[in-house]
Each structure stands twice: as structure tokens, then as C-alpha cells.
């Protein structure tokens, strides 16, 4: 019996070895983003360079995995969709600095780490969406107004704990200080039409359905809805507002990429980073995912272009990441999600 068990164990080990990723001609990616969203970009990269890409996608736990795998980790780069996730990697000293002219040329200084420990690839604005029927154009133009009593029972958002909302609330802390930001958040909470739930698209839907008149959501969800035949009629009843366009600019979050400390395929990884910041890749991001290119030289086409120029808040992303803890606690204190 034991012998048989041992034989079984050996057989299993042998059978499993091919699953381990090999090196050379490859680049290994830990991604917080669904691989089907990355696929058009990675396919273009492989077509151009012949370098194969391998992906593990998960929304949590990848930093932990990378950390514990240590110097033997197969991961070359980590791709994230939120500034907090990527700066967590830097804090834990898991990313390596990249000193690369192409990247520094393509990505503006405020969209990358000072030592090149991460680079933004796209930006996405946190927008206000209003009902075309029930809200006049220009009736609401800033985040601050979301807390005004006139909107009582008229606003929908997803959970206050979602990273996109946490980043927005952090930026409010950075601009107004913690005390005032909390007052504002309390005001916003008082204006909610229902308990926060669902994703950003659900908030846009809720406006169309008449549950609320105003919603908060990321720009590209709206873009993707407009491109989907079934969802277009829903999205068309809603107007997109670039908040604080006249003032400090709209709060933006990033999707980004970082080289790992342990990267076994360093050269390939840097080649991928360069490619993703290039005109070609940045266009794909804009067209397929309705995101704003991080590369200022690239002017987006299609829906993103129709929305007009994005005046982005120049607040440093690092400061947003640093305030995230405070924002989370603030959300708990005003009991936002209930």
C-alpha cells in the first residue's frame, strides 16, 4: 500500500512538472486585470517581438505570492489597475527600478515612480454620470457638489470600499484635509438613493432605471457600454460629466506595470513595458477598453476622443496611495456602505 502510494506520488510529480513555466523567449506576468482584456495587447506584442507571454490573473493574493516566492519567483512584471495595489508592491520592496529612455519619454513624470519602480499605462477618470431627463447640463460639475443637500436621495455609487472609490476619497483628503473630507463624505452618504452595491455599470443602469439621477463611475465602463449593442440604449440616456474640469481637474486612477525584483526574463520584461507605452499599444488601450492613454503623444480615437480632452488632477498618485488608509477608515466611520 505504501509503496503504491509512493509510486503514485512520484507519478504525480512527474506529471506535473510540465506545468512549471520555463525561461527564454518568454515574459511572465502576474496580473490584477482579466487576461481577456490584456489579450489584444499581448498578442500584438508577441507578433512584433516573438516573445511569448504567460499570465496569471487574480484580484487578490498576487503580491503575497510574489513576496513569498522570493528570488525564485517566475514573475517578471506585475500589472495592476489601481495605484494602491502598485504602491503596495513598492512598499514591500518587490519591484525593481527601471532606468529606460523610451519609457521616460513615453510616460510623463507624474504618471511614473520617481525611480522607475512603476509606470502608468493608462489613466481612467472617475466621472459623474447624470440623467439626461432629470438633470440639467451643468447642474453638477464638481465632486464637492455631490454632498449638497439638493441631491438628497438621488445619487448611486458602488461600495465605498472599492479601490476606485477609496482613491477618489483619498484625493478629497489630500485636497481638503481629513476633517472636511469626512464632512463631504457624510454629505454624499446622506444623498445616496440606495445602499451601495454592484459595479460601476450598475450605477449607470440605475440612473436609466430611475432609481437615482446621478452616479459615480469610471470613464471606460461607460465607453464599453456604448460599444455594446445591448447596453448602448441604457448608456445613451446618461450624460458623462468630467468633474472639476474648470478647476483642479478630474480625479484619475491608473493601470500600471512594474518590473519585479526577481524577474528572470528582465530584458523581455522591459521590452514589454516599452511596447505597452508605445503608440500602437496605447491606441489599442483607447479603442478596445476606452481608457485614456498615458502617453501624451497619442491622441485617442473613437469614443474617448468624442468625450474631449481630459483635464486630469495633477495631484501625485503617491499621495493618493498614502491617504488610502485614512480613506478606508473614513468610510467605516461614516458607515458609508450601509
Amino acid at each position: 500500500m505504501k509503496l503504491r502510494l509512493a509510486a503514485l506520488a512520484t507519478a504525480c510529480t512527474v506529471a506535473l512538472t510540465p506545468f512549471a513555466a520555463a525561461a527564454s523567449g518568454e515574459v511572465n506576468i502576474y496580473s490584477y486585470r482579466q487576461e481577456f482584456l490584456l489579450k489584444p495587447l499581448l498578442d500584438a506584442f508577441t507578433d512584433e517581438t516573438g516573445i511569448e507571454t504567460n499570465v496569471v490573473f487574480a484580484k487578490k493574493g498576487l503580491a503575497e505570492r510574489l513576496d513569498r516566492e522570493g528570488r525564485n519567483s517566475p514573475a517578471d512584471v506585475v500589472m495592476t489597475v489601481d495605484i494602491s495595489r502598485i504602491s503596495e508592491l513598492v512598499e514591500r520592496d518587490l519591484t525593481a527600478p527601471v532606468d529606460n529612455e523610451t519609457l521616460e519619454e513615453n510616460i510623463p513624470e507624474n504618471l511614473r515612480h520617481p525611480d522607475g519602480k512603476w509606470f502608468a499605462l493608462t489613466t481612467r477618470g472617475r466621472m459623474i454620470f447624470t440623467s439626461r431627463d432629470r438633470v440639467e447640463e451643468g447642474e453638477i460639475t464638481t465632486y464637492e457638489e455631490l454632498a449638497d443637500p439638493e441631491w438628497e436621495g438621488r445619487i448611486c455609487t458602488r461600495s465605498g470600499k472599492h479601490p476606485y472609490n477609496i482613491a477618489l476619497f483619498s484625493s478629497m483628503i489630500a485636497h481638503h484635509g481629513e476633517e472636511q473630507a469626512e464632512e463631504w463624505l457624510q454629505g454624499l452618504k446622506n444623498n445616496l438613493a440606495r445602499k451601495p452595491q454592484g459595479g460601476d455599470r450598475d450605477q449607470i443602469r440605475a440612473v436609466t432605471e430611475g432609481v437615482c439621477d446621478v452616479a459615480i463611475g469610471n470613464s471606460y465602463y461607460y465607453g464599453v457600454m456604448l460599444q455594446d449593442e445591448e447596453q448602448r440604449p441604457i448608456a445613451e440616456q446618461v450624460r458623462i460629466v468630467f468633474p472639476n474640469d474648470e478647476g483642479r481637474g478630474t480625479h484619475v486612477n491608473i493601470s500600471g506595470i512594474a518590473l519585479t525584483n526577481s524577474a528572470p526574463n528582465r530584458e523581455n520584461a522591459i521590452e514589454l513595458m516599452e511596447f505597452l507605452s508605445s503608440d500602437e499599444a496605447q491606441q489599442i488601450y483607447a479603442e478596445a477598453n476606452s481608457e485614456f492613454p498615458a502617453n501624451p503623444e497619442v491622441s485617442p480615437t473613437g469614443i474617448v476622443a468624442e468625450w474631449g480632452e481630459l483635464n486630469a488632477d495633477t495631484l501625485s498618485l503617491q499621495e493618493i496611495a498614502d491617504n488610502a488608509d485614512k480613506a478606508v477608515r473614513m468610510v467605516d466611520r461614516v458607515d458609508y456602505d450601509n
Partner: protein
Amino acid sequence: MNQADVIEQPATPSPLTPRRTSSRWLFAAIAITAIVALPVLSVAWLALFPDENIWPHLINTTLPRYIGTTLILMVGVSALTLAIGLSTAWAVTMCEFPGRKMFQWALLLPFAVPAYVIAYVYTDILQYAGPVQGAMRDWFGWQNAQDYWFPEIRSLWGATLMLGLVLYPYVYLLARAAFLEQSPSLFSVSRSLGHSALSTFFRVVLPIARPAIAVGLSLVLMETLNDFGTVDFFAVQTLTAGLFDTWMNLGNLGGAAQIAMVMLTFVVILVTLERYSRRRQQQYAARDNRAPIHRFTMSRPRQWICVLTCATPIVLGFVVPALVLARYAVIYFDQSWSTGFVEITLNSLFLSTAAAFATLIIGLTLAYSRRLHDTRPMQVMMRLSSLGYAMPGAVLAVGVIVPMAAFDNQIDAWMRDWFGVSTGLLLSGTAFALVFAYTVRFLAVSAGSLESGLQKITPSMDMAARSLGKSTTATLLQVHLPMLRGTMLTAALVVFVDCMKELPATLILRPFNFDTLATHVYQYASDELLGISALPALIIVLAGIVPIILMSRSIGSARAYSQQ
């Protein structure tokens, strides 16, 4: 019935304890427990080093709600699963009504539907733009959501209903097996002593079936406690929500691990209380269960009540989700079908089969060791090795990564020092890591049912075999295994179906470019693309049906076998 003498003196060895060969089984059990408990111990270790003390903030703000919501959810799901599971199990075992044989296995079908999938499906049907509210608006001429009230599925009651619908099969499965094993003569005796059928059910049938029902219910409760997909989607704030908030938003893994340990303590207390309350009971199979069960013949209206009782959970928990998924699978077929599906399906089948075998062998070793050495330390080991089930999958995944990566890196360091070669990561990021995680997670399922299966075999069997000169191993293989066949098949199949549905640990631990059906569903569903995720979700459900039918047959045939 009450042979309390065995249990009441835990310090003395069980009468089954042999003199020599026993140490082998004991060592095997110790070694297995040490390995299987590693992930849980790793999380306990992480809990010792939080980045900061989260409790003052939690207690001042959200903790009371987290605990309250968790308790309500657990009570609600328990009530629902007990109501559905017990009533249907009793009906198909003891009553004669049209479709009884079909219901016997069909009642297990909702088990094949992952909780996160049923949550997506019902949200899709019941939301504003869905068919139900759409029809109501057309019918009554309402214009928008302000004109009428409609229950919000994304709520605590919604989560209770969803979890109840897919988890009741645990109770049904174990209760039905227990009812089948009961001697019908007990029932007759009770009736002849003047008790009504109902009173007999509560005074005789349920108490005898209680250990089995308790196992089923504890599985339900642990699943409820570690569920994240459904409660997150429904914005229901349970302890799990607090745990992930602490981990992901506050970046405090140690704090999150502490919450996980609190949840674990919850489960341990519950299970201990249940066991303590029946500590003086010890049951072995009555010897006269050859007597056939005489099912009640009932009036027409009563028969229809039975049909309705059995059909409702199947329709809500299986038929509706399957139809919705099938409809989307057809509409979005071109977008969702790819040749990769064959590989993805094979991945799922391979991992689930491997894990089912592993949990079976390990569970059997532990349960048999416990039979040989029924001591307190052995009982503790048994419980310790089953704790993985009470932890959210993502936390357990971290618990797997920590010791596994440490092991890999240690071997690598030695090899570099001594031979100058790097072995890299041997286990981390391989399919082995996944099988290991599944085994740790679902061992509770197989070990629990094998343990209760073994307990029902009277020790005189062992004594007879041993007095005839058989070794402990030979006794297990030649005496117990044939009698346990049904239990083993059921245990393996439940684990198999559970593994097919497993999501959070798979996401984190999997190799590069490696998808299972569950991760494939999640990839699209998490981007709010239910349509494209429908086809793989449907495959998970369909893949679960075959084992479920097999499982039901094995239970039925176990009874037929003993009747021959």
C-alpha cells in the same frame, strides 16, 4: 443503543487498539495531520504579526455589524437548509408519491451550481432590467423604479436564499443516508407505543440521525462562513467582508489573519458544543436493518404536497439557473466558445479527480487511525486537519503559499550551496499546489463522512477479523472497505463536485496560462459579462450532474445491498 462505555473513558485506549501494528497507523496520522494543518497554522502564525492593531477601529465602527450580519446569515442558512434538507429527505425515504425515485437524485442537483453563479443568475432575472420586473412594468403600466416596490435580491435575505438553495443538499444527502440506515422497527415500536408519525419523527428519527445531520449542517455553516463571492456581490457585510477589507484596503495581512482565526474559533466552538451535547451517545448500526421500509401510502392531496416540497428547491436551485445559463450560452455561443474549452475542462476534471482521491486516501487513514486509537490527542488531530474548510479560500491560499514557498526556497538554497544548481520553485505555482490546497480545504468533507461511516460499523467486526489473525491493514481492506463502499464513493464525489466549483484558491495558486472552468467563469463574470461566462458556468453545472447521480445510486444501493 447507548453504549457509552467506549466514549466515557477517553484516556484508555480503544478496545480495537492492537498491540504492535498500531504504531504505523498512528505515525501515518501524525505525519498527515502535520502536513495538512500547515496552511492553517501558517495563517495562525501570520496572525501573530499584524501591521497594526485593527481591533480598536473595527470595534468602534463596523465589527458589531459584521458579527451581527454573519450570525443572522448563519442562522438563516441553517434554518433554510434544515427545513429543505430534512423535509425532502424524509419525504423521499418514507413516503410514496409520484416521481419519488426521480426526486431522490434530482434533489442533489442544486449542489452542482456554484453559489456565485446562482447569485449572478438571480440578480440578472430579478434586477430592474430583468424579465420579472419588466413583465410587471408592462402589466401594470409602471414607468420606472420610483413607481413601485420590489424586493432587493442584493441583500441579506437574498444571500440567505442563494446559499440555502445550493447548500441544502449537504443536509439532504446525509439525512437521507441516515434515514435509510435506521431500522424501520424502531419507527414501528414508537408508533405502537402511541406516538404519532410527527412525534416519532422528532423523538426517535431525528435524534438517531442527529450525528449525520450535524455533519451536514456543519459543512453548510463552514461554507456560509467562508463564502466571499456571494456576500461580496450582494454587498452583505459579513466577517469575511471585514477580513478582505483589512487585507486588501488596509494592507494588513496579519490583521486579516486574526479575523480568520476568530472565524475559525467560531466554528470550533460550534462543532464542540454539538459534540458535547451528545457526548453520552454512541450508536452502531442496528443489526436488523434487513427489514424493508414500508413507505406511507397517502391521500392524493398529501402526495401533491410531497411533490411540491421536493420540486420547489430543485426548480429554484437548479432548473431556473440552468435555463438562464443555457439561454445565454446559446446567445453568446460565438463569443464564448473557443477550442481552449477542452483543455480548460480537462484541467478542472484532472484537478478535481486528483483531489478527490487524495482526500479519500488521507481521510480514510485519519478516520481509521482514530478508530484504532480513540484518544483525546487523536480527536484533536482529526479536528485540526479539518479546519481548512472553515477558512475563506483566498486566505487558505496564502496559508498554502507560505510554507510551500519556504520549502521550495530552502531546497533551492541548499542545492545552490552544495551543488551550485538552482532548483527554483518545485511545488509553488504548479498543479500540485492546487491539488494540495483542494485537499486541505475539502478534507473535512471526506474525513467527516468516512469517520461517521466507520463509526456505524460495530467493533465486533474488527474483533472478529482480528481474532481470526488479520492485521489492522488487512481488516481495513477486507472488512471495512467493502462495507464503506457507498460512503467512500459519496465522499469522493462530494469533494469532486466541490473542487469543480472552487474559485478563490485556484485563482491565486494556479500556474501561468492555466484556467479551470471556475476561473474562466470568473474572468468574465468579474467584468460584469454574465453572457460570455454562461457557457463555462453551464459546463461546471453539467459536469456535476454525473457524479451526483452516481452518488445517489450508491446510497440507494447500499440499502438494497443490506437488504439482500
